[in-house]
């Protein structure tokens, strides 16, 4: 690494998260052990090569081996290797489990650009602005081929696989601008699928936000503010006519009542019993799967009548928005089916347009929001997803 200095690269690559520091410690430990091992081999090699070079009249010894030595040099490396593995577990654990309250940034890879969407609706291409000291969860997917969203300064990267949602998280602690690379070969423009992540101090970040937002940042997840992912999702929820079935009208006479499909309020994060006697947690992966392929895991008690939405109908980006909206849907948040006109971007605060003030008439909010139950009475043949 010393060689790197003066050859264009810094002595040690930038570290802009705590994770990067933890990572580097493990790396340094492995590097120290392997360097020691390598030097040991080299020392032996060099010594033997000189000491036992052929001499006139010399006589080699007949040594067949030594179980004792072999045992030693099997056991010691094995112990070190296992120590590497054990020490790396907390690191992998750290990177795979975002803090529960971290706002989610949605990243879609596409030949050949990165599209980022902040929870407050700000969208960027190949640029990512983050606030120093604030943890963000990053959920990555792809619209076409496999990409990989990597930020070397954060010592973090994750595959963007089409059809899958994978998450990681960062808490940048150092102001600066760092590379974003696509690390998984994705075709002609692979090397142009690069970007910049800007870590900004709180003031700068707020100022930057001001330039992009028309609304004051609300508490994340509290309500879909104009322009947020959930807000777009709500518009799609009407446009795709999800609301026709997934509504809160409990009227057995109406064709568009909640008899046909579960009310989605409070669904996110709850435990859903599915056909076949199992149950799953309604996480983003499940929600996504249920839209793309509704028959995969049918909510038990409902008829499997939900149509599947292919990529032609709902792009990955839109799907992320719908999922974000379903996450937002706490108990009592579901708008009336008629309030189809969502507020346009840039409109002043019109809370009514989002259906919050018009509380659902029937029935009153369920006291247990975590349990999405088919509230309607079920007959022998039960209702859909």
């Amino acid at each position: 690494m010393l060689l790197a200095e003066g050859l264009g690269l810094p002595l040690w690559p930038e570290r802009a998260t705590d994770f990067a520091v933890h990572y580097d410690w493990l790396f340094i430990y492995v590097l120290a052990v392997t360097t020691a091992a390598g030097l040991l081999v080299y020392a032996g090699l060099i010594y033997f090569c000189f000491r036992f070079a052929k001499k006139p009249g010399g006589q080699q010894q007949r040594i067949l081996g030594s179980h004792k030595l072999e045992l030693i040099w099997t056991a010691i490396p094995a112990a070190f290797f296992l120590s590497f593995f054990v020490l790396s577990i907390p690191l992998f654990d750290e990177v795979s489990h975002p803090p529960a309250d971290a706002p989610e940034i949605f990243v879609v890879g596409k030949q050949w650009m990165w599209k980022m969407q902040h929870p407050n609706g700000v969208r960027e291409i190949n640029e990512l602005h983050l606030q120093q000291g604030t943890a963000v969860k990053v959920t990555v997917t792809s619209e076409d081929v496999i990409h990989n969203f990597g930020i070397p300064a954060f010592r973090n990267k994750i595959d963007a696989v089409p059809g899958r949602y994978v998450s990681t998280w960062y808490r940048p602690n150092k102001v600066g601008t760092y590379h974003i690379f696509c690390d998984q070969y994705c075709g002609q423009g692979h090397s142009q699928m690069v970007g910049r992540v800007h870590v900004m101090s709180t003031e700068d970040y707020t100022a930057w936000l001001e330039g992009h937002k028309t609304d004051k940042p609300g508490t994340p997840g509290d309500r879909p503010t104009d322009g947020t992912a959930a807000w777009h999702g709500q518009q799609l929820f009407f446009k795709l006519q999800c609301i026709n079935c997934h509504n809160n009208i409990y009227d057995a006479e109406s064709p568009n009542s909640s008899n046909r499909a579960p009310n989605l309020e409070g669904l996110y994060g709850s435990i859903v019993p599915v056909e076949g006697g199992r149950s799953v947690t309604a996480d983003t992966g499940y929600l996504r799967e249920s839209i793309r392929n509704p028959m995969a895991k049918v909510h038990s008690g409902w008829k499997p009548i939900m149509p599947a939405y292919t990529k032609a109908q709902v792009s990955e980006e839109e799907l992320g928005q719908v999922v974000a909206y379903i996450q937002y849907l706490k108990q009592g948040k579901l708008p009336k089916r008629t309030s189809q006109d969502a507020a346009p971007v840039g409109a002043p605060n019109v809370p009514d347009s989002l259906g919050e003030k018009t509380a659902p008439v029937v029935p009153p909010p369920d006291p247990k929001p975590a349990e999405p139950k088919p509230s309607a009475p079920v007959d022998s043949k039960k209702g859909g997803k």
Partner: protein
Amino acid sequence: MATSTAATENLTESVLELDYTPQMAPPVTDLDGPPKVHYLNHSFGWLSWLLTVDHKRIGILYLIPLTIFFMCGGIAAGLVRLNLIQPYGAILELDQYNKAFTAHGTIMLFLFLIPVIPGVLGNFFVPMMIGAKDMAFPKLNLASWYVWMAGAMFFIAALLFGGLDTGWTFYPPYSSKYSHTNVLAAGLGVFITGFSSILTGLNIIATVHKMRAPGMTWGRLPLFVWAMYATSIIQILATPVLAMAVCLLATERIFQVGIFDPTLGGDPLLFQHLFWYYSHPAVYIMILPGMGVINEVITCFSRKNIFGYKAVAWSSVGIAVVGFLVWGHHMFLSGQGIYLGLVFSVLTMLVAIPSAVKVFNWTATLYGGQITYEAPMLFVIGFIVLFTIGGLTGLFLGIIGTDIHLHDTYFVIAHFHFTMVGGMMFAWQAGLHFYWPKMTGKMYSDFWSRMAAVIMLVGFSLTFLPQFIAGYHGLPRRYPYYPVEFQMMNILSTAGATIQGFGYLMPAVYLPLSLFFGRNAGANPWRATGLEWQTPSPPTPHNFEELPIVTHAPYEYALPSKYNLESGHAYEVTKGESGGH
């Protein structure tokens, strides 16, 4: 499996004649010139070569196209490296760059590294080392050469007419849907060469099991044979799965149904699982024969028994077996599941152990020897130096925590080349230089061959050491354009590659020249033990005029024999730890 009966023999008490030939046959000595009739001159003409079933001639048949393919792959590598001296591409367009690195990767892997040692040295020397007259199935052996050539021609044609830009990994959905290049033709080429690889492996396994000379017990097999045996097991067990993965990929590409493409209902990870189920063991297909060659050469030039015969033999088999269980370490970041990743990571740590044991045993073999430094030995020392780095850096990639940052960077490139070029390529050069006198009966230039070894080592290190640093700084692989701060590292690499390329050209000059101007090598120029050295150089058509009878474990250099001409004095026998050989 038969265990070593040699282990029970007490070799240390009595001094034994080290003569593998039966007593009635006069031993072949260096003083004899080449035999009147040998495998090269007992028949002439194109057809006598193209229809031969002689394993030695088939070995030569492999050698020639392999050399050409290596040069093709090398030219592609040269283009890639030249292009990278400027951050925005020096000579190639984006598409051309992608095709160039794909051509480099696929040719080197499928058409060079996988077949080179099994095809040339395996074919030529496995039967000779175990005292057989030929492979178990000579016609199948020739058939597998034809199959391989057919597949290789398909592959080369696919690369020449339109090219291929998927990388050697063929990941869908890119390869199944988005790539507009010759994925199908190249896939067919891989499929066909894979079939050849299976047949060769089958042949070698059957040969080792059924064709050993009397007395050639499993415990007396030369370690090269053990390594080839382990390689062949991997070949027959892993290659069919690759063939099937390629078939499924082709099906998806032709019929547009979803097996791997998520928009059609498939799963891209399924391909990665099938692909790496083959391709991870495939790197052991590439390196194990190389390790086998190292055993032969290092014992010969240090005049020693191998240190810990059993440990080295079983570590080959251990690598082959555990190597099947670690494919998921290529997919830590692909969302395959956290727990799956942990299991694959710990298994990867396990598979590293036998490789470490081998390196330690080789080094220990030097202890107490009488080492000389002819070209094959220099290549072996280069191998140990480079493979140690290659193996140790592999740990960084196998540890689930450290792989997060290093995945798909130049660190991976450097690691892979340290094992495959620093390891396998040096082992191949060692083997080629070691066995060239036996194969051709001629000796090459001592000075130039030593120079080549040194130049290759220097060039190689200069090429790939900077790539570790670039990789740790985050430079992703397969980037024709890259951030400007990495330019210096790339220039160093390209400079190294130039030196290295020059190094590879040298044997291509002095080895053929030795055919015309080299002195006669004699039967056993290195004073090596082993049945293959008990035949004249070049060997006679049926290798052994009479059935050889084996009475000893291999590598008994320290015991006096009529081949240890120079050790005229009282031998001193040091007792090894019991059972160590």
